[in-house]
């Protein structure tokens, strides 16, 4: 984002880098807010950065399409420039680095040596293991070697994207290169997995910034995915959910129901079995810029058991019925008549009958009294 024309850039307190403190705090707050950290985290983040303790990041690329990086480049709150230049210190990234060859290899080794135990190792792409991993080599070293070397001295290992998280498309049958995800290679070492094809960059920012700021890791589920992003299914927060609840489904791509934006379950949406926050945090801050928003069923890219395994247009089971209380029970509840109710009803009926009888008697007596004077008068 271009802050140059903002008046507070002139008013704000300048820091040595030439960015106003106010603007910088805004960036930090936006980043914290975007990834669900408390507002106080923005302050801490700014302090850390101001004191020159930007978290060093080493980004490794293996068997992948660079889609996750491309996705990261399109974030704007904070923008990639702010991220790379202000919030983190990107030490090594094959796509973003101007340098190449020997120069960049040296930079990598230097960074590992200098920041041992502190840096964040982000892995993008699957790691081939077949035939000693010869299918992916950088600078003469195999992916397995590089990963084990870099990860061994890292403070935090993040697997970004489905490939790094569980093999992804590279590990799809028949998996010719024996591709595996980072958690399968680094057995025993905590790895934060951020599956997605591509992964939502905000999930990476959230994890990295929380580690950099608070020194803690986000709570993760049994597959190592941060719960702040992967605890709920797409289906639970889907913008098309009302159509599902009303039984309105897209019958065919391109038909009227598709144009009307009905639920995509019938044409193969994996949303009910897929844990991710795609429907809540749009990619690149553009609303609807995710498969379901664009009219394509979710393919379940964050789920190892779904993505690249279950055919794209076949349906899946709904993991969580919500809310189960609205369904009819198997045996519909019948009204029960308690003895108390019977007693009360008996008393009421008895009372009414008694009152009726008394009233009848009184009326007839009165009628008789009225009749007699009439007889006497003439």
């Amino acid at each position, binding site marked *: 984002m271009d802050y140059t024309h903002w008046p507070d850039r002139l008013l704000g307190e300048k820091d040595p880098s030439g960015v106003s403190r106010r603007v910088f705090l805004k960036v930090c707050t936006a980043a914290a807010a975007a990834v669900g950290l408390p507002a106080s985290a923005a302050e801490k983040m700014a302090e850390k950065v101001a004191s020159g303790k930007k978290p060093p990041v080493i980004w490794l690329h293996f068997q992948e399409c660079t889609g996750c990086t491309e996705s990261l480049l399109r974030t704007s709150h904070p923008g990639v420039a702010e991220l790379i230049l202000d919030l983190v210190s990107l030490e090594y990234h094959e796509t973003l680095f101007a340098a190449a060859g020997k120069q960049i290899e040296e930079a990598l080794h230097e960074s590992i040596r200098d920041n041992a135990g502190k840096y964040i190792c982000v892995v993008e792409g699957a790691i081939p293991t077949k035939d000693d991993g010869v299918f992916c080599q950088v600078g003469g070293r195999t992916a397995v070697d590089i990963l084990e070397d870099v990860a061994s001295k890292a403070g935090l290992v993040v697997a970004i994207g489905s490939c790094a998280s569980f093999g992804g498309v590279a590990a799809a049958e028949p998996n010719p290169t024996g591709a595996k995800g980072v958690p399968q290679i680094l057995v025993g070492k905590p790895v934060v997995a951020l599956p997605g094809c591509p992964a939502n960059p905000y999930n990476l920012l959230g994890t990295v910034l929380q580690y950099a700021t608070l020194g803690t890791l986000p709570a993760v589920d049994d597959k190592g995915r941060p719960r702040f992003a992967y605890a709920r299914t797409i289906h639970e927060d889907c913008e098309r959910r009302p159509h599902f609840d009303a039984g309105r*489904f897209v019958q065919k791509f391109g038909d009227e129901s598709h144009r009307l934006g009905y639920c995509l379950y019938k044409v193969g949406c994996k949303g009910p079995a897929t844990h991710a926050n795609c429907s809540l945090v749009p990619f690149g801050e553009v609303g609807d810029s995710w498969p379901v928003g664009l009219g394509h069923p979710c393919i379940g890219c964050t789920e190892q058991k779904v993505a690249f395994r279950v055919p794209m247009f076949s349906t899946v089971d709904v993991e969580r019925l919500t809310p*189960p209380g*609205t*369904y*009819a*029970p*198997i*045996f519909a509840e019948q009204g029960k008549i308690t003895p108390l109710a019977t007693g009360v009803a008996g008393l009421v009926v008895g009372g009414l009958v008694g009152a009726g009888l008394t009233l009848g008697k009184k009326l007839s007596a009165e009628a008789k009294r009225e009749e007699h004077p009439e007889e006497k008068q003439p």
Partner: protein
Amino acid sequence: MKLTRRSLLKGVAAAGAAGAAGAVYRRAEARAKKQPPPDAVAMLFDSTRCIGCRACMEKCKEANDLPPDRVRLDGVPYDAPIDLSGTTKTVIKLYQGSGKTAFMKAQCLHCVDPACVSACMLGALNKREYGVVTYQKNKCVGCRYCQIACAFNVPRFEWNSPAPQIVKCEMCHHRFPEGKGPACAEVCPREAIQFGKLKELRAEAQKRIQDNPWRYHPDVFGDTEVGGTQVLYLSAVPFDKLGLPKVGDEPVPAMGETIQHGIYKGFIAPIALYAVTAYVVVRNVRRGEAEEQEEAARKPGEGEERKP
């Protein structure tokens, strides 16, 4: 003397009735099992596939022009039926037990040998083309015997209507001429309810169990139950948990119809009983007349004796 003869005749009548009943019983065993028509259609509900979206319920109302379940006093419709009713021909129900959930689609099972058809005294309910059990309102007198007869508690009565009818799933047979099957099967996003030929769906059900034995209860409900139904159920949980009672394989009308039809077979038993009764009456009348005449003959003598 009189009493003995009377009791003798009674005994004869009783023996005749017992003989007829015996014949009925023998015929009960011989009653041919009804078979579905060769072109029978069917529906297959796979509980393990159902996701509870209730699109079928929605579409059923639309296709059958049914009103909402309830309308609030201010006129706002509230359509959340909890059971079949005069306004609801199918309901998705949820079984929840010991961590397991399963969906159930309640609707008419279109029995091969339906109890409602047997119980209906005016033939308002009929097994019609393709084996669909249909209802004709013009023949119905509203006795609701069909409700009592049905083993699955399916036919419902329009209690709120001044001219009530019986409401039950008729497999959308009014859509057949348009070349369409049941609306629920058409909209189901997961083919949890499928429409097709009975033979094919029976085979399909068996195939699914064989292919995924871990996924299914080993039986198909409706293959043999009450003599077979044209709506088949597959499930992961026992069927009685889904509200499908353990009904046995004997068709509900088997015993009742055999006795009824046996008694009236060729009208022999009623005529025999009538003949015996008529004989007794005639004999009694004749004897009575004879006694009267005897008394009349005696009376004048008696009167004369008393006079003086």
